[in-house]
């Protein structure tokens, strides 16, 4: 034990903050001494006992609720209390209990999930089957096919050849392979591992493993993270490194950036303003009270003595707070709850939309964040990734140029590859000449396909259904598949060999070196020895790079090929130039030595290797060029055209080269021939991008479309940040890969495409769906509606509350500013909660100004959102004035009508209670009619809510004013009989009718005038009573007349090292973790 301890270099001292993690395989006792978290997870926030206190504590930290409590305290002071306690308590309880219920159900779900996950079984080497939650750090677990990964594991071995394992991230259909190559004797299970403490970096892991006195470095490649599923791998063994809460998955969760919409920000400003306004009103009223008390109150003391020591100024002070209570409805506290409800509703509509459901992948759209809907209607800039978003990331081998001859024009029918038993049936090609050339044995053609079959890092997998390729980039897959169909079938590989079936003959090449691809080299080479013993270097890469390294004898061929390349590029194809070179045995041996030296050097290995590679990749002989079509996603050009019509600027941020990006730009309608000036921002560093962009920002923002190429993920985010900061516009970022995550998180709205590159983008996104083309529906339909609904809601909500409150203000001038309410206290309690709650929610969930087809037909309808037209400070000021007018009508008309009249039997009707009832009925009817005026889309639900609420009002009023209620709760319902005695009076109804007319008709007249004089596009569409427009027309695919050179290559480093290296713990450094999306899944 002691020796092991020292071997592991363990410092037994315990530290509070874990600085380094030490663990020993299968030695629980030892590992437990560090008290590392076991594998039980707890995502739930509460338990039975802590739920109520904790949740309430959290809730009272919110400003709105705190404000309620403040009001409640004010109400408990008898001198101030102008309203009974229940006016505050009832809404507060309602708000609290809604939130409580929501949090409770969320937490129950979390508890269930936790239990489910914690009770999964896994085989632990020392204990047999064990529940997940009992798995400890240091255990070695055996995972079988289709099992979820238990914890963050250090991979030890797998059943598959080359020790590869395949994993699938949950909810991802595509298989992703994660290669590991370990040969480890499991009988010796005394590994000691030292590694970094738990952290949330998915792409980094550092540690060492000590085994039999030898120490090896560990990196991220060897770590299998919790949240993935093992696929197509019979079994694998892993050592638990981080368990439960320490796993990278858990460390990453719950740290999402909290996004707020611009309306949220505006609302906060407005609420602050309203607070100020409230203080202002209360000040005026309390000054009024001081004056009144001084002039009138003193003389009224006879009838209403003051409390001891009270005078006009104290009374004014108290009145201020009393009015704070009465006028508190001007600060719309229930606003926040209602806003959440309707956002949730609109999010559900996104989830439920069949038109955003992708049948092929069975993926519905998903609103992952439910608080951003209305911002979808305000997008000004879209930042899009290219690969996987605009394009399908499916490559098809379309054209090739071999030895100066161009093949692949689409003129004849599909080639039948049945002569080749190993052919991939999905592959199509249309040029029979090429088949003939292969069959006739043309050496260049054969060399071309041999190159394609040899020079790659694809893994082959022989299954019962046939041969499958695991390609790191789809271009490679396309090229190898092409070679396969033309008779050069790549069957399998070992670190030293590559097995082909060449025109039916099994051939094995000795793989001597892989000169792997990287972003700087832009090419890849292999050196192989053919069965005949011939040494050959095959190289493929970007045309310019290859051309630099060609032997002078190829110059003629080069010219012809260049022409072909231009042609292909003009068609928007991604091209590669192919070349080879026969090697001399001696020369190679020497090179190999130097190569070995470089590859084992510890410092600057990359650079040294590059130099070595450079040495041998010269004097190449050109074979030809291949052209791969990067297929666009369905409907991309149409979508982009639609969005452009909606005046949304689209920026494509891509890691691709300028030409490729430009090509894609043309092929998806972003760039058009008539756009003469194209500014291309191509820079290598963030600073340059920023500088250039700052210079060009004004220009760029005037542009219809901007394409940024060669940007790194970080730069993507920086570009978004830049636009966000300098343009103050609402931005949306859409992408599908891990390299888009930063951009998605930075933008106001992040959209993830649940596509081929894994789930990381989706997981950090706010909305997700399967196809780029759904974006137009998300924005033009859902976004527009959400924005419209939210704005209508806010406008109406503020209107009804201001109107309600201002009436109190006017009444102040008649009741000696004594903070007497106009309405019954119960009406004050229920007005927001019951009488007007449902209609406005109905309005803001169902309303549509025009239906979705019109939205598509006239993308211009989107503009009001971008210009903030429906809800802004200006609009708010108008609401304020409108409310002011309405409240004047709603107070002074009943006042004038009632102040000197009596019932038809001569009895009282000008009393306070009758007046209160009249004023509140007038108010409710006026705001309900206003609601009707604002409703564009009357569904049965709207009707039901509106009429229902009015009926409920009358029912509740009659009930509360009934004898029974009075006799039971005498002090709470003093309004007994008021409804019966005044609502049967004609003059009451005539007053209600008049106030309603006076409140509503000016609005109707104003709207009508605007429609006639200055109709918006919206009005025009609404007025046009024509049938819905036909479905969107088909866009002919544009031919690109100008030739542009376009080259494309997979931009990640391949598996070169991996496939050649047979040694332990030499894992390649990956530049693109996106291809291994094992890091980004949630606990299934």
């Amino acid at each position, binding site marked *: 034990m002691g020796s092991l301890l020292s071997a592991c270099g363990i410092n037994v001292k315990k530290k509070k903050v874990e600085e380094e993690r030490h663990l020993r395989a299968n030695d629980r006792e030892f590992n437990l001494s560090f008290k590392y978290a076991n594998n039980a997870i707890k995502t739930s926030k509460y338990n039975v006992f802590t739920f109520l206190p904790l949740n309430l504590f959290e809730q009272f930290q919110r400003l709105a609720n705190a404000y309620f409590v403040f009001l409640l305290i004010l109400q408990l002071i008898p001198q101030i209390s102008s309203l009974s306690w229940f006016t505050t308590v009832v809404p507060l309880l309602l708000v609290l209990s809604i939130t409580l219920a929501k949090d409770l159900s969320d937490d129950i779900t979390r508890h269930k999930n936790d239990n489910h996950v914690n009770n999964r079984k896994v085989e632990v080497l020392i204990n047999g089957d064990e529940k997940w939650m009992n798995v400890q750090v240091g255990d070695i677990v055996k995972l079988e096919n289709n099992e979820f990964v238990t914890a963050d594991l250090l991979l030890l071995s797998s059943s598959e050849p080359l020790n590869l394992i395949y994993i699938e991230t949950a909810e991802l259909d595509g298989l992703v392979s994660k290669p590991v190559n370990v040969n480890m004797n499991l009988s010796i299970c005394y590994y000691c591992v030292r590694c970094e403490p738990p952290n949330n970096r998915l792409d980094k892991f550092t540690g060492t493993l000590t085994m039999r006195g030898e120490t090896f470095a560990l990196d991220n490649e060897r770590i299998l993270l919790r949240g993935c599923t093992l696929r197509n791998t019979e079994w694998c063994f892993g050592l638990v490194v981080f368990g439960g809460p320490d796993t990278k998955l858990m460390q990453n969760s719950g740290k999402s950036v909290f996004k707020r919409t611009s309306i949220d920000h505006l609302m906060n400003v407005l609420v602050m303003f309203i607070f100020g306004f409230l203080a202002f009103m209360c000040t005026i009223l309390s000054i009024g009270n001081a004056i009144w008390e001084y002039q009138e109150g003193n*003389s009224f003391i006879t009838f209403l003595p003051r409390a001891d020591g009270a005078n006009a100024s104290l009374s004014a002070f108290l009145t201020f707070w009393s009015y704070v209570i009465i006028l508190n409805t001007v600060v719309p506290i229930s606003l926040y709850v209602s806003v959440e409800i309707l956002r949730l509703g609109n999010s559900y509509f996104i989830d439920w939309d069949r038109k955003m459901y992708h049948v092929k992948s069975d993926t519905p759209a998903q609103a992952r964040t439910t608080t951003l809907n209305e911002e979808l209607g305000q997008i000004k800039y879209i930042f899009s990734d290219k690969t996987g978003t605009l394009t399908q990331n499916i490559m098809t081998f379309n054209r090739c140029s071999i030895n100066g001859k161009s093949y692949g024009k689409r003129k004849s029918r599909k080639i039948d590859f049945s002569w080749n038993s190993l052919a991939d049936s999905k592959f199509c090609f249309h040029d029979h000449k090429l088949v003939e050339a292969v069959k006739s044995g043309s050496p260049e053609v054969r060399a071309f396909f041999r190159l394609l079959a040899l020079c790659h890092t694809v893994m082959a997998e022989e299954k019962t259904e046939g041969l499958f390729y695991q390609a790191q980039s789809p271009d490679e897959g396309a090229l190898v598949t092409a070679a396969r169909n033309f008779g050069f079938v790549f069957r399998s590989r070992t670190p030293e060999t590559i097995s082909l079936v060449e025109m039916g003959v099994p051939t094995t090449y000795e793989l001597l070196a892989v000169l792997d691809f990287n972003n700087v080299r832009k090419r890849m080479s292999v050196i192989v020895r053919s069965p005949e013993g011939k040494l050959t270097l095959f190289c493929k890469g970007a045309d310019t790079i290859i051309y630099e390294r060609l032997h002078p004898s190829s110059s003629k061929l080069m010219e012809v090929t260049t022409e072909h390349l231009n042609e292909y590029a003009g068609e928007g194809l991604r091209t590669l130039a192919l070349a080879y070179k026969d090697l001399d045995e001696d020369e190679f041996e020497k090179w190999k030595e130097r190569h070995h030296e470089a590859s084992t050097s510890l410092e600057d290995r990359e650079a040294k290797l590059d130099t070595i590679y450079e040495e041998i990749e010269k004097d190449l002989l050109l074979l030809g060029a291949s052209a791969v079509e990067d297929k666009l996603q369905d409907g991309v050009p149409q979508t982009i055209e639609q969005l452009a019509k909606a005046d949304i600027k689209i920026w494509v941020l891509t890691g691709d080269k300028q030409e490729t990006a430009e090509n894609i730009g043309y092929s998806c309608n972003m760039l058009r021939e008539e756009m003469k000036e194209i500014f291309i921002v191509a820079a290598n560093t963030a600073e340059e991008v920023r500088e250039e962009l700052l210079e060009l920002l004004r220009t760029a923002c005037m542009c219809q479309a901007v394409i940024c190429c060669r940007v790194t993920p970080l730069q993507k985010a920086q570009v978004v940040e830049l636009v966000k900061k300098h343009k103050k516009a609402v931005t949306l970022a859409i992408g599908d890969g891990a390299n888009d995550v930063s951009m998605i998180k930075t933008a106001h709205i992040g959209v993830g495409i649940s596509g081929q590159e894994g789930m990381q983008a989706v997981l950090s996104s706010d909305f997700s769906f399967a196809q780029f083309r759904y974006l137009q529906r998300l924005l033009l339909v859902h976004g527009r509606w959400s924005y419209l609904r939210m704005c209508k809601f806010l406008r109406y909500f503020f209107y009804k509350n201001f109107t309600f409150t201002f009436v109190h203000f006017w009444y102040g001038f008649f009741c000696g500013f004594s903070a007497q309410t106009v309405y019954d206290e119960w009406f004050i309690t229920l007005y927001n909660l019951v009488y007007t709650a449902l209609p406005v929610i109905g309005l803001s969930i169902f309303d549509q100004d025009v239906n979705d087809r019109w939205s598509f037909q006239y993308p211009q309808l989107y503009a009001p959102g971008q210009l903030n037209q429906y809800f802004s400070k200006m609009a708010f000021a108008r609401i304020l004035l409108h409310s002011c007018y309405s409240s004047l009508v709603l107070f002074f008309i009943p006042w004038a009508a009632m*102040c000197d009249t*009596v019932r038809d039997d001569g009895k009282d009707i000008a009393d306070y209670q009758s007046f209160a009832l009249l004023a509140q009925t007038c108010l409710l009817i006026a705001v309900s009619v206003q609601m009707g005026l604002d409703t564009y889309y009357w569904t*049965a639900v709207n009707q039901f809510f509106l009429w229902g609420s009015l009926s409920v009002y009358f029912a509740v009023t009659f009930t509360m004013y009934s004898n029974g209620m009075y006799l039971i709760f005498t002090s709470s319902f003093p309004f*007994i009989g008021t409804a019966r005695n005044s609502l049967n009076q004609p003059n009451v109804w005539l007053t209600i009718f*008049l106030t309603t007319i006076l409140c509503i008709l000016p609005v109707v007249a104003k709207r009508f005038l605007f429609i006639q004089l200055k109709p918006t596009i919206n009005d025009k569409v*609404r007025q046009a009573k024509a049938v819905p427009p036909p479905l969107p027309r088909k866009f002919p695919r544009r031919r690109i007349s100008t030739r542009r050179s376009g080259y494309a290559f997979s931009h990640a480093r391949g598996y070169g090292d991996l496939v050649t290296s047979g040694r332990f713990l030499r894992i390649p450094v990956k530049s693109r973790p996106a291809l291994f999306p094992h890091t980004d899944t949630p606990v299934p």
Partner: protein
Amino acid sequence: MGKKQAGTGPLSRRPDNSAFKQQRLPAWSPSLTPQTVLPTFYILSLVCLLLGIWLLITVEYTYELKVDYTDAGTCEQCFNLRKHAIDSSTPCKCTVSFHVPKTFPRVSFQHDVVRLSARCLPQGDVFFYYGLRNFHQNLRRYMDSRDDAQMVGRKNNLKAPSSYCAPFDYDANGKPIAPCGAVANSMFNDSLTVMYNPTDGSKIQVPLYRKGIAWYTDKNVKFRNPPTNNTFSLQQAFEGTTRPLYWQRPVYELDDIDSNNNGFINDDLIVWMREAAFPNFKKLYGVLNRAQGPFTEGLPAGNYTLSINYNFPVEPFRGRKELVISMVTWFGGQNYFLPIAYLVTSGLILVTAVVLTTVFVKVGKKGKNMEE
């Protein structure tokens, strides 16, 4: 996590094709077209005009007479007397003469229009109100200063008035006040007698019903006396309580004529307790008893004298007191506001309608603005 995996199969996650979920609920989408808006305006204008005329005619024939007696006639003396001491026990009587120019409420049906609505016109009842000006019954503290539970006759509450009544809950000796509170305390306590002076020089007292002037619900539900029976009188029921400070009589002796009108169910008390919404108000005092002539047809034109037991002080709050004699129609008392408001509204709507029509004809109809 949290993803629903409802069932399996290739389309298992496809959303339902329901009208609700696809936001295709059948709906009515009205819009403000000229065809709907313009007729509405014209019709509403007409409706308001007709209503206005109808109401105006109705109100025109609703007579009302106000006699301000604050310091009129011989009341100036009393007015000055009541200036300071509120509970001065010195009685003060005064009289004010006034003239009724036309017979209340007989209507000479000169117009056909009026005859049409004749059925709605008054049957001949004449109502007597006392009016107060600048008396704020609507102050919050004033309105709160009452105890409904006491006045509904609960025994427990009778002797334990609510703290809201302070300082009118207990008297100086700690005796509970019934009815407690500022509202009851400040009850209007002038008594008014109207004498008809026919030309023959005689004086006939105008007979008034002093009961039946409160809401039915108030009289029967909201206000109740503490339980009494044959052996247990009202006075006994109120034993242990004292009268409000400003009252001359205890609550069980408010009406010395009708013993059933005493206690909390006294009509005058009930009427007073129904606080007015505004500082200027009138409250029903009595209804003309038309049982005997010359009042069978109403209140004949001629000279009248109003004699007042002047108790209620108005000088402190610079208020006025008045007697209001009024008749009522289906539309209530005389109230010119609504008819005039309807007529003005009608005019405004008409003007708006004309403007809108002009705009529509000049601009909208050509559809210039409607072009895409």
